Structure formats: C-alpha cells, structure tokens
C-alpha cells in the first residue's frame, strides 16, 4: 500500500502544527494573565469615570478615556472618507502617474517611525496651522499614520471584488459611482473592516506621536482644541515617569485592551450595517 510511508510524516506534521498553535496561545495567555493579575486590583467602575489624582497613581482615568475616544473619533472622521476616496481612486484608476506615486509614498510611509510622525504633526498641525497641543492635532496626526494601512487594505479589498460584478453593474448601465456604492464597497466590506480594525489598533496603541501633538494634560477636555492625554500616553507615563505607577499602568493597559475589543466589535458591526445593509433589509 501507498499509505504507510505517509503515516509517520503526517503525524509529525500534525504534532508540529498543534505544538505551534499551543506555543503561540500559551505565550499570549502568559502575557494576558500577567496583565490581568497586576491590573485587575485597580479596576472598578469609579475608576472609569473619575479623574486621575496624584499623577495617576490614584483616582481614575475618566478624562483620559474621553480624550482617547475623541482623538480616535477625529482620526477616524478624517481617515475613513479620505482613505475610501483614495482607495477607490487607486483601484479604479490605477494606471495613472498620480496613482503610482501615491502608492509608492504609502509604502514608504509605512516605514516611518511613529515619533517622526509626532514631530511632523507637531510642526504642521500644532504650530503651522495653529491648532496647538490639542485633541484635533493628535487626531489629525494619527490619521496620517492610519491612512497608509487603511488605504492599502481597502484598495486590496476593492481590487479583489470579482470582475463578474463589475461587468454586471456596467452591463446594467450603472454609473461607476453607483456600482461602487451598491456593489463594490459592500462586497469589499470585510477587507475594509479589517483595515479599519488594524488602523484603530494602531491608533489606540500609539504613544510617541501623541506626546507631541495631543499632549499630556489629563483634565476633562472642554472642546477639540483642548489638549488631552491618550490612554497609551498615560500608560507610558505611569510606567516610565511616575514612581509607584506600575499598578495603575497595568490597570490602564487592561482598560485599553477591553476598549479595543469593544471598539473593534462596534466598528465591525457598524461597517457591516452601513455597507451591507442592503443584503439584509430592503
């Protein structure tokens, strides 16, 4: 029989695959449980709504959560329309010189260290445009960092949409805009959502760029032109600058992770509703 010689190697493969998966999951559970162990003591409802005290060792992270969400909101408001527009341009009119140069600069920008984005944002938004240290500056800077990721994954999603649908839409005499809106964007929704989640992850995790743009102030922001401290900046400050801030840092890290999960789910379901609503309802 042919079968026997394959048995052993097949078994080896199975073992390798299971072992790798177990190793990966194990490493991450180590990390996550460490975080939870250190941080859980700090977590309760009041800490989510109250202001930090004593440089963040005591008190909560209410204003910081609000600032974080506002910064993220500004960044998304900027990234989504600009990113979608650019991605559509790149996928539908891909042969032009403009498209080629944009694509190249996107790839290049993916490699620029975040601190450089921070200095850029500081120079352009804070000083040149006169926005100062503000949630707006931070959000706009983050948008610059998110654009390359979001555009590239959206473009990939749009290009991957089957040509049958493209041709079908054209054969019905639909305009390109209608084809995009009704067929191509909904069909590319999974890729767009994935790109969005990656961008949100990057934005929430960003520290270096925000220190120079949205700043360090941990007061509850009154408007978008106020400086506001992001959660990741708070974690960095607590763990690196504030004596005895470790526990609070772990607590804040836990909150950040939960926030990420929540935002990802909300973003996914919103994108789903927004882009493929026509599938489920009339």
């Amino acid at each position, binding site marked *: 029989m042919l079968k026997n010689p394959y048995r052993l190697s097949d078994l080896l493969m199975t073992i390798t695959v299971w072992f790798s998966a177990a190793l990966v999951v194990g490493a991450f559970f180590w990390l996550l449980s460490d975080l939870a162990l250190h941080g859980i003591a700090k977590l309760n409802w009041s800490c989510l709504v109250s202001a930090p005290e004593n440089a963040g060792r005591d008190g909560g992270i209410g204003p910081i959560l609000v600032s974080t969400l506002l910064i993220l909101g500004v960044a998304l408001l900027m990234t989504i329309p600009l990113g979608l527009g650019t991605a559509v341009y790149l996928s539908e009119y891909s042969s032009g010189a403009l498209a080629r140069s944009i694509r190249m600069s996107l790839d290049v920008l993916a490699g620029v260290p975040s601190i450089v984005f921070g200095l850029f944002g500081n120079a352009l938004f804070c000083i040149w445009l006169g926005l100062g240290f503000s949630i707006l500056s931070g959000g706009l800077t983050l948008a610059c960092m998110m654009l390359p990721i979001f555009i590239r994954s959206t473009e990939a999603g749009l290009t991957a949409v089957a040509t049958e649908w493209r041709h079908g839409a054209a054969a*019905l005499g639909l305009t390109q805009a209608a084809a995009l809106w009704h067929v191509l964007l909904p*069909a590319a929704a999974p890729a767009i959502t994935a790109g969005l989640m990656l961008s949100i992850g990057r934005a929430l995790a960003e520290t270096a760029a925000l220190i120079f743009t949205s700043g360090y102030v941990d007061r509850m922001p009154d408007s978008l032109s106020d400086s506001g401290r992001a959660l990741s900046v708070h974690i960095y400050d607590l763990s690196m600058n504030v004596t005895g801030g470790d526990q609070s840092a772990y607590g804040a890290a836990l909150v950040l992770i939960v926030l990420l999960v929540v935002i990802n789910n909300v973003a996914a379901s919103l994108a789903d509703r927004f882009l493929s609503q026509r599938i489920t*309802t009339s």
Partner: protein
Amino acid sequence: MMHDTKKLLSCAVLPTSYTLSDIEQGAACCVPIPHIQVENLSVSYHGKSVLEGVSLDINKGCITALIGPSGCGKTSFLSTLNRLTDLIPGCHMQGRIHIDGADVTDPRLDVLALRRKVGMIFQKPNPFPLSIRRNIEMPLREHGLSQRSAIDERVERALRDVGLWEEVRDRLDAPALALSGGQQQRLCIARALALEPSILLMDEPCSALDPIASAVVEELIQRLRNRYTVVIVTHNLAQARRVANYAAFFWMTEHVGKLIEFGRCQSLFDSPSHDLTAAYVTGISG
C-alpha cells in the same frame, strides 16, 4: 424540452403592443428589420487582433446565435455591442455598429443609456451580494425610478416574466446569493428585463447550469423572442438549433477570429455554404 421548430421559425409581424402571453400563444415571430448593424468590426487587445472584419445585420425581435469554438472572438463581439469592452484594459475596437440608427462606437455616446437599452447576461450568474429585491430595484432607482409602487410593480413583473415570482415572492429580502444557480441566472435575466431593454446579449447563459435549470432558462429565452432582440453565444449546437432564428459561425484563422458564415439558423445547420461550417456543425472539427 423539444419544441416545434417550424412554428418557432415562422415569421409574422407583431402588433405594436403585445405581452409575453401573446407570444406564448405562438401568435408571432421576429421581423426582418435590422436592429443592430455591424460593419467591418475589428477588436484587438493590447494591439493584438482577436476579431477582424465582421459585418452582419441582426434582426429585430429575433434570436441570433453566435457559434464557434472557444477563443474565436464571440464574447469579444458580444461585448462591443454594449461597449463593455471599455472596461477591459488595452481593448480597442474599430468599425461601425449602429443600434436604432445611433453609432455605438462613437466616443461621445451616452454609454449608460446604451447599456440600459442593451441588457447583458453572463456565463456565470452574477447577482449582486444584495437581497433578491434589491438586485432588481437598485438599477431601477439608479436609472431614475423612485416611486415605490412603480418599482414594486416592475420587480414583480420582471420576476413573473422569468418565472421566478412564485418561487421567491415570500423571500424577496433574502440574499440573492442563497438562490440556486438556475434561479440566480433567471434573477439576472429579470434584473436586465426590469430596465425594459430592447436588446438582450447572452454569453453562454446556460453553460454553468445543470440540465434541468438549463432547460428552464432555455425555455425562458424562447419566450423572449419577438419582444426582445436576443444575441446569444452558445457552445451547445442543439440549443442554438432549438432557439435561434439566425446563426453566425465564427472561426479562428491565423489566430484571429473571423465571421465565416451568417444566415438563417435552419439553412446554416442543414445546408451550410462553407466547408468549415459544415465540418463544425456535423461535429467533424468541433
């Protein structure tokens, strides 16, 4: 599914307004008035010629079958009629195509209006990832129809025309992709019919379907005769024989597709004037 070919091939002038049921009663057939006039049409991809020197008149209300081996330019020919060739990078066409007197090859032509008038059905059913209703409704809305009742009426009429109404009336909001292959293809036909085109282009509409679904669609195509000018690409010679009034035989010579013979379906099959045609339809070099 054998039909009385004689009856189907007989021709008479229809009254100006008629319904599908009139046709089903076998009242009439196609008229010998050219609807699409093609003169000396050539198509090339990136400078490489795939189709050269095609001239033929396609008659109003008739079913014209395009036959021939794969790669001889039948689909390219079909795509020029609604300018879908615009979407293919590097594709270039030369020659003249007149539909209802307007030159299709004119770069200033309103392509969207043309495509609304010239519907197209593809080899693989391609309903959009939307609900059944939205598949038909969306193009209608995009073409300016916004009255709810008018839309609903058209959706129902189109679905009835393709015989899908009874099957899906209770689940119009279900995803179209959940339908079976044959149902999907009929939905695509309904989607095209809802726009009230005068011409339907069909690119091997049955080849991706099972025999039963294929027979249903074929029967549907038969019922479209007289109301629409149908141009259908098919590899199924028996099918061409069953449904078509006219047939055009394409063949590739020196890597370029050419129209070898065009004429009444019956004469092309029974007494071909060209050796290649004779060989192909009798299965010798097909």
